[in-house]
């Protein structure tokens, strides 16, 4: 599931690094406030543990073998914030030192496995285990399900990322520049392996460790959990970040000033206009553009359609569209950050805080 | 000068009493050995002396000041204490947590805020002293037991502490490294350094200490000179420090406590 360099476009890499960075920042704030000094060694050794677990070749029902990531058990024992950091560290070392997973795609890999994996595992484990006894069988079931589904959730996101590459990023002749398979091929290809093998491996490891701990060392469940503190006030760090983002959002209209249209950003009317067609051909190495592709024709009405004809003219202005898109993009990032914050903040029922 | 004063201290963890009602005074310049079998509380006592755990009952003072979580929260007191007392842990893998030997020895000075020049000078000096300069860029993972121990000791003496606490320092060492370590501790005889060594190895006790304390299940059983304690074979047997040696003569089974001692009159080379 580690995506290597070359499979994701620069834009995808940057976006996913952005989402990961927001998550790392949130997670670090959570941890620092609470455990402070103990964090550094705890996260380090757990990251090393995760790294080693990823190498375990586990025998599975049916005679196959598979690998787990250890994200679910890290979340159960350390809590999602510490898990996000620890697993990200393990993935970073795998990418940099062992060539497992790319460096440009590290943001994507950490987002898929560390962030999505931890959050899904956390939500499911506590949803199923509820406030049942620490030693109950229900916890084992919760662990297995959390492992299985968090693994598949990560794979799903990865499959999605890979599957949209050919549609969005291809050269003038239509050849995909990065991952070559569209969603309808990429998703099933990735999901089959995870639904049957990797997910099971994750379930086996997660449930196996929880059941062992129930018998051998209950203290681990309580002592190690990184308790979640209250939301810190917007300190200088957080507000500086948002200031940066706000500035960037305001600068986006500068893109309209770039001479000519960016390659690929043509509208349906450009395909019908002779002059525009010449321009398209020029920027596409003299390849004659086809008559308006049906997809573009369908999509082109989408922006103006919601606004009825009597709406003021500026709404249909592309510059306005740019700024609105930027604000929307920032809004997505902000909501993502708030969502991550909210999930990390929620204290699980019935668990002791250390 | 009293370096440590422990008064009726008790400490438990996980429901087990590790230290029971212990009272002890250690003076400056003393070389002491803590004898005791596994689980006797030696490690816990050393950690208490290093301000890493605190008694639930009773009290402990270091250099005249109370040693508590609260007093150590004061940054200046903390730095001062950490500079003056150093502990060499039993498990070298937990103690050596930096990526290279140089970084390891530089760790304490770095944390205590030394300047770059001071730090480099002192670290080089210490590496030289312990004979490990050639290991400076190596990862602790790949060192031998003896090398790890030398790095661990270097990382503690780099600050030139007044008190040196050693937790079973010979446990992972081969005989040659053991004798090198004993030589090192002997170097501090007669200096102002206070050395407290926890060990089960009886045959080095006379070389490294002037005072011997015996611990059993968290209590102080005996306090005397090496010759006093080591000749008390009954005591040593009951505290599991020596084994009863059995051999047979025909039908008779002969048992006596077994302890190797060397007297300095019968030296052989």
């Amino acid at each position: 599931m580690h995506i290597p360099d070359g499979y994701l476009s620069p834009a995808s890499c940057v976006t996913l690094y952005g989402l990961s960075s927001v998550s790392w920042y949130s997670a670090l704030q959570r941890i620092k406030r609470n455990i402070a000094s103990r964090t550094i060694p705890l996260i380090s050794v757990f990251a090393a543990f995760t790294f080693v677990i990823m190498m375990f070749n586990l025998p599975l029902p049916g005679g196959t073998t598979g690998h787990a990531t250890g994200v679910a058990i890290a979340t159960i024992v350390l809590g999602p914030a510490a898990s996000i950091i620890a697993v990200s560290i393990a993935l970073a070392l795998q990418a940099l030192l062992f060539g497992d997973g790319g460096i440009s795609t590290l943001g994507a890999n950490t987002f898929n496995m560390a962030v999505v994996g931890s959050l899904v595992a956390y939500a499911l484990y506590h949803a199923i285990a509820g406030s049942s006894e620490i030693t109950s069988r229900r916890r084992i079931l919760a662990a297995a399900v959390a492992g299985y589904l968090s693994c598949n959730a990560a794979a799903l996101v990865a499959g999605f990322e890979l599957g949209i590459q050919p549609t969005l990023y291809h050269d003038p002749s239509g050849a995909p520049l990065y991952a070559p398979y569209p969603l309808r091929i990429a998703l099933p290809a990735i999901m089959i392996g995870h639904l049957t093998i990797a997910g099971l491996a994750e379930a086996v490891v997660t449930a196996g460790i929880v059941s062992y701990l129930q018998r051998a060392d209950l203290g681990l469940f309580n002592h190690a959990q990184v308790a979640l503190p209250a939301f810190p006030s917007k300190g200088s760090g957080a507000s500086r970040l948002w200031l940066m983002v706000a500035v960037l959002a305001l600068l986006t209209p500068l893109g309209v000033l770039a001479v000519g249209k960016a390659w690929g950003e043509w509208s349906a009317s450009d395909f019908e206009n002779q002059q525009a067609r010449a321009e398209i051909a020029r920027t596409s190495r003299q390849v004659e553009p086809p008559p308006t592709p049906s997809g573009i024709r369908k999509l082109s009405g989408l922006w103006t359609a919601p606004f009825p004809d009597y709406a003021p003219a500026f709404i249909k202005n592309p510059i306005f569209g740019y700024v609105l898109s930027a604000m929307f993009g920032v809004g997505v990032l902000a909501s993502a950050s708030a969502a991550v914050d909210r999930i990390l903040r929620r204290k699980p029922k019935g668990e002791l805080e250390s | 000068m009293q370096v440590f004063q422990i008064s009726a201290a008790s400490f438990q963890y996980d429901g087990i009493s590790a230290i029971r009602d212990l009272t002890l005074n250690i003076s400056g310049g003393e070389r002491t050995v803590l004898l005791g079998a596994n689980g006797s509380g030696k490690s816990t006592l050393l950690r208490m002396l290093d301000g890493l755990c605190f008694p639930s009952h009773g009290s402990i003072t270091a250099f005249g000041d109370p040693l508590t979580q609260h007093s150590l929260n004061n940054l200046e007191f903390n730095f001062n204490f950490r500079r003056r007392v150093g502990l060499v842990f039993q498990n070298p893998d937990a103690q050596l947590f930096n990526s290279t030997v140089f970084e390891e020895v530089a760790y304490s000075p770095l944390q205590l805020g030394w300047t770059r020049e001071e730090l480099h000078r002192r670290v080089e000096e210490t590496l030289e002293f312990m004979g490990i300069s050639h290991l400076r860029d190596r990862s602790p993972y790949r060192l031998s037991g003896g090398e790890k121990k030398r790095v661990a000791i270097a990382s503690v003496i780099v600050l030139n502490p007044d008190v040196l606490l050693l937790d079973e320092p010979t446990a992972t060492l081969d005989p040659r490294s053991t004798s090198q370590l004993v030589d090192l501790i002997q170097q501090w005889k007669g200096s102002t350094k206070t050395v407290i060594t926890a060990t089960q190895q009886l045959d080095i006790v006379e070389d490294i200490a002037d005072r011997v304390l015996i611990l059993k299940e968290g209590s102080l059983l005996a306090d005397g000179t090496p010759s006093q304690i080591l000749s008390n074979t009954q005591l040593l047997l009951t505290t599991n420090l020596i084994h009863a040696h059995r051999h047979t003569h025909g039908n008779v089974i002969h048992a006596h406590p077994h302890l190797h001692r060397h007297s300095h009159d019968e030296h052989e080379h």
Partner: protein
Amino acid sequence: MRHSIESTLHHFSHALSNALISEKIAARQTLLQKIDVRIRLIGTLLLLIAVVLSHTYRGILVLLAIALCLAILSGVSLFTLAKRVWTVVFLFTAVIAFPALVLTPGPPISSAFGHFQVTETGLRTAILLVLRVETAITITAVLVLSTPWNKLLLATRALGLPAEIVTILGMTHRYIFLLLETASQMFESRKSRTVGILHNADQRSGAGKTAAVLMMKTMDLGNDVYTAMIARGFSGEARILEEPRLRSRDFIALLAFASAAFFCFWIGR
């Protein structure tokens, strides 16, 4: 049935051997190795960005040529690269890229596979993918194989990572090998105690137990390291050794990297 244990052990030793090779190559002190690690790291990242931004073969091929030059200047033989990096990556990527030959819509160029037609776009995309992946991994491998790993991790400070993260990276790396060794020993002891053929379910529960025990040891280690850090003066704020100042040759190297990256980006648009 023993396959999974052996496969796991194989993974472990492969990881360990990677580290050892790097240490050997990094000791050669070739031209490029004399450049500050931080500059080499940033330079590598710039070249990597150029690889990912490239839309045509031209850009990528020039980058590959540059990577090969870097390899030689860094003391990494092309043979080592071929053996450790290219073959594995090529096989892996070729398997993934192969179906794209026939699945990508576009003008067909050959009916070599009967019903399935290889398209021109399919060929282009497959070649582009393989080239891009191989070049990217070559650029990274050259850096990693010719730099001591702890220095490389410390250099990430130059990327603006906070001191805590840089510390965690180094510490994790330091303990990965310890845990690998511990896990290896546990697996080997299980293997040697396995008489006859283990049923899959038993194998599974065995693996689960090993993972659990490893985790418990991990937590203990974490606590021990924390205590050791406190004992050495750690007071909550991570501090890292200052790196030596950059020299003029480092800035020249940075300029060279940046120009090369930009040039390749330009011709690859």
